[in-house]
């Protein structure tokens, strides 16, 4: 029975595959409208410069070029600046200075894609170079080059943010038996979803209606932003339709509003023709959605016996030229204060200072719920530093300190209430699966022979599912999410949700939630999302929030339907509703299984034979405001071998034990973990965006920015424990980002472990062969 329904816990094959495997997906660049124009963008070659002149005459002479837009053209429309989600503002096009390389300078609109590119080529800009500051630490020093002349405050400091008990923490450190300190730099990286960003904007002058197809993870929020930013141009929210069609990966990079979107919308409103803008990879990787860039100094106080007591962390966050991160309003440093991780620190204090530099906006997620990776990496690295200091086995030291399962719900020193967890169970399972004790023996034997092998652990705790409305909003909009369910007379179902898949498989998994609740086969349930004209208002998909928030809404909306359906069933069964129970996916008269009605029978009656006095139909809506966040966790163990000749790190095995609470679809969850692990491997060993002193990006194409291929990616081994969330309607916690959060520390810890006997205590990621080889040479062990 359950298998046919395809409810919760079944590896139902994905519905969305049918179109993707046939090349019939519909991504933004696949949208083609009659009379459509193409927009392309000229960008600054310099990181900081005054614009003396923009000569558009040659571009305008090219047959097929319809218009060239510069910052000056946007001033009368008041569109040259736009607000960011973090109470800052960002240039759409500059009127006098550019603040980073690849910043938008002018836009060309043309009848064909290639002609728009020709137009961009023909634009001539006269720049006067200005001094550049790329290092946030230098940027915060007195007398540093000022990045943002437009602000009243004449320095590069954006904000200071702190949380915790400063005095108590300082005292704990003063009294501590052991203190370890580690500086870590978590480099700037880029999500690089394989589909870049783009939009088709189509303004109907007669109706005054704007329709946009856009690569966005949050279509409703975008609709509201457009209404707020461009309301003065006559765009009203009921005449704005945002469609987020198939999205080729998001990972946080498709949450922000980029100038290209605004330009395409503006161009369509002005010309009355549909306008398409699709960025190329170089633009995507040089100007959009950078993550991390945290300079961290972390200290841990402990007793000699290994008991962890206090944590103190100071961080400088490089936000580039605009604070265009997409954090909940109250949290400029995101949820970084999950940094106490899986351990019951008594005292903790964390402070972060944001800085402007001549780089593109930073601080946007990379498959991570608002700075959680930075936090998990720091604490899990620091625990290993402590283990080295105390000459303790890192697994044993973690086991000694974990928040015990009996302590949940547990309130951390920094104020989070962890919902549920059993950290020891996850680590034990990972150790058993990988054969930890034997590996340690093998390592000792190898070391004796001069071979370099390391074992690294990461026992992370995540925080996802933003979030409860009392603390979580974006631009004032509370971070609830929604579901609307309609059961049709023939027992088929339409589900519409406020989130938006970018590959997570919502059409299947949200169908499974409804299938489980209503006893209707998943094949009979259609799930729609991403069209603001039809879907209920929601805040979108990022921060692993779809299942925790919209999943909750879906389960509750389905339960509302079941409530009503029960009354109809009682009517059909001629029974008292109190005598009717929901059992085996049917309504039954208690104790008389033969007297039963299926949901399909009830649905038909809801439209044909409903009780007098009851409203017809079988529909429900729910806007779910989660009572708390959810706290997925896991323990990862990585084994590496290091080539003493090349310095190359080879991942021999990687076991990931994840606990994301109730699992809706094990196949999809495993796929999410595989992908997340690979995006954890990437910054650990390969990816980093750097700039030279002039602010020139290094690594601005896929030639230089190394996404892992199938050759670098190991055969991930996964396992699970299940500790349901007590407050979530189906006990689910969310899983999309856990592995990205947890994996980097396991890999870095493994490499350091391989070299620890040589006196190595830390290596900043990405741990490239060059860095390792340098260490091997210094230590005299290079081959």
């Amino acid at each position, binding site marked *: 029975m359950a298998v046919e329904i395809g409810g919760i816990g079944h590896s139902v*094959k*994905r519905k969305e*595959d*049918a*179109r*993707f*495997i*046939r*090349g*019939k*997906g*519909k*991504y933004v*660049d*696949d949208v*083609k409208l009659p009379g459509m124009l193409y927009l392309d963008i000229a960008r600054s070659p310099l990181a900081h410069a005054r614009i003396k002149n923009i000569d558009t005459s040659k571009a305008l002479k*090219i*047959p*097929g070029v319809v218009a060239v837009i510069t910052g000056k053209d946007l001033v009368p429309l008041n569109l040259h600046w736009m607000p960011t989600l973090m109470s800052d503002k960002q240039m759409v096009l500059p009127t006098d200075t550019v603040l980073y390389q690849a910043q938008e300078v002018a836009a060309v609109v043309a009848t*064909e*894609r*290639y*002609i728009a590119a020709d137009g961009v080529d023909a634009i001539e800009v006269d720049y006067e170079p200005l001094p550049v500051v790329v290092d946030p630490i230098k940027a915060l020093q007195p007398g540093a080059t000022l990045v943002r002349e437009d602000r009243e405050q004449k320095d590069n400091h954006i904000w200071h943010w702190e949380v915790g008990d400063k005095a108590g923490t300082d005292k704990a450190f003063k009294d501590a038996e052991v203190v370890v300190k580690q500086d870590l730099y978590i480099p700037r990286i880029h*999500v690089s*979803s*394989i*589909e*870049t960003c783009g939009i088709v904007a189509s303004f109907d002058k007669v109706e005054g209606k704007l329709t946009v197809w856009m690569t966005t993870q949050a279509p409703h929020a975008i609709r509201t932003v457009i209404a707020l930013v461009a309301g003065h141009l006559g765009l009203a929210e009921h005449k704005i339709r945002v469609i987020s069609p*198939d*999205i*080729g*990966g998001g*990972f946080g990079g498709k949450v922000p509003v980029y100038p290209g979107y605004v330009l395409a919308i503006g161009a369509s409103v002005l010309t009355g023709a549909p306008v398409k803008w699709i960025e*190329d*990879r*170089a633009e995507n990787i040089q100007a959009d959605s950078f993550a991390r860039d945290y300079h961290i100094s972390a200290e841990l106080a402990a007793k000699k016996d290994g008991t962890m007591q206090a944590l103190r962390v100071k961080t400088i966050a490089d936000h580039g030229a605009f604070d265009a991160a997409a954090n909940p309003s109250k949290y400029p440093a995101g949820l970084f204060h999950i940094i106490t991780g899986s351990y019951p620190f008594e005292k903790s204090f964390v402070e972060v200072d944001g800085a402007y530099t001549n780089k593109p906006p930073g601080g946007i997620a990379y498959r991570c719920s608002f700075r959680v990776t930075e936090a998990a990496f720091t604490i899990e690295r620091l625990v290993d530093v402590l283990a080295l200091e105390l000459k303790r086995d890192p697994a044993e030291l973690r086991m000694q300190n974990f928040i015990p399962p009996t302590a949940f719900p547990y309130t951390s020193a920094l104020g989070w209430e962890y919902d549920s967890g059993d950290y020891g169970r996850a680590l034990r399972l990972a150790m058993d699966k990988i054969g930890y004790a034997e590996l340690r023996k093998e390592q000792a034997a190898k070391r004796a022979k001069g071979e370099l092998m390391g074992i690294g652990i990461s026992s992370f705790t995540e925080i996802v599912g933003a979030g409860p409305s009392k603390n979580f909003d974006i631009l004032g909009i509370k971070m609830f999410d929604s579901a609307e369910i309609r059961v049709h007379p023939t027992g088929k179902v339409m589900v519409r949700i406020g989130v938006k898949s*970018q*590959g*997570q*498989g919502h059409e299947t998994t949200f169908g499974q939630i409804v299938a489980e609740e209503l006893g209707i086969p998943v094949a009979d349930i259609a799930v729609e999302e991403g069209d603001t004209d039809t879907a209920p208002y929601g805040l979108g998909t990022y921060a692993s929030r779809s299942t925790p928030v919209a999943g909750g809404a879906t389960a509750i909306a389905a339960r509302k339907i079941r409530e009503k359906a029960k009354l109809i069933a009682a009517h059909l069964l001629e029974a008292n509703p109190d005598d009717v129970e929901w059992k085996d996916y049917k309504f039954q008269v208690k104790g008389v299984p033969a007297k039963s009605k299926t949901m399909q029978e009830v649905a038909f009656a809801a439209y044909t034979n409903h009780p007098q006095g009851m409203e017809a139909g079988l529909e429900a809506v729910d806007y779910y405001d989660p009572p708390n966040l959810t706290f997925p966790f896991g323990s990862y163990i990585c084994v590496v071998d290091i080539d003493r000749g090349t310095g190359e790190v080879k991942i021999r095995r990687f076991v990931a034990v994840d606990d994301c609470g109730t699992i809706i679809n094990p196949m*999809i969850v*495993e*796929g*999410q973990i*595989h*992908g*997340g*692990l*690979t*995006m954890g491997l990437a910054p650990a060993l390969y990816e980093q965006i750097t700039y030279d002193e002039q602010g020139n990006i290094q690594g601005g*194409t*896929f*030639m230089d920015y190394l*996404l892992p*291929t*199938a*050759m670098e*990616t190991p*055969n*991930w081994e996964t396992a699970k424990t299940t500790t349901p969330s007590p407050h979530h309607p189906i006990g689910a916690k969310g899983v999309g980002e856990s592995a990205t959060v947890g994996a980097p520390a396991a890999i870095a810890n493994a490499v350091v472990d391989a070299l620890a006997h040589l006196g190595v205590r830390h290596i900043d990621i990405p741990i490239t062969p060059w860095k390792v080889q340098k260490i091997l040479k210094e230590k005299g062990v290079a081959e």
Partner: protein
Amino acid sequence: MAVETAPTTSKGQRTLKIHVTINGAPHDVDVEARTLLVHFLRENLGMTGTHIGCDTTNCGACTVLLNGRAVKSCTVFAVQADQGTVATVEGLEKDGKLHPIQEGFHQEHGLQCGFCTPGMMMTAVALLEKNKQPTELEIREAISGNLCRCTGYVNIVKSIDHAARVMRETAEGKA
């Protein structure tokens, strides 16, 4: 071969007449000399199953078969396909029956967002033409020019292996 002296479009671009067979259907068309094969497929013919993910020939989202060989269609001019045959994702399903590689990706959960998938499948089809029983390493090597940001490749490898198995079984069944 494409003719030497070609007319120009109103935009001043040289055009050439080409003859190319795509998924079995012949096309005789005028195309600008500078048009990339991927844009020819997507823009001129509306075959949007082939995707674009980069501008440096790294991602493989644009992979098609040109005269039976897997090529990155972002790095081939349409005119270079003159007198040739092109196979794209749209041609994999025949008479309502999915190609084993399509079945493999569905069964083994080899795709998430689906953006890399057409290119991955075309690369895999080219591999399985040459190598009926590839090892895991051979599969990984074959797709190392195709980037996927979603799946972590493990299930893609399984999908291709699945297809190889089905194709061998079908071949044996026929023999």
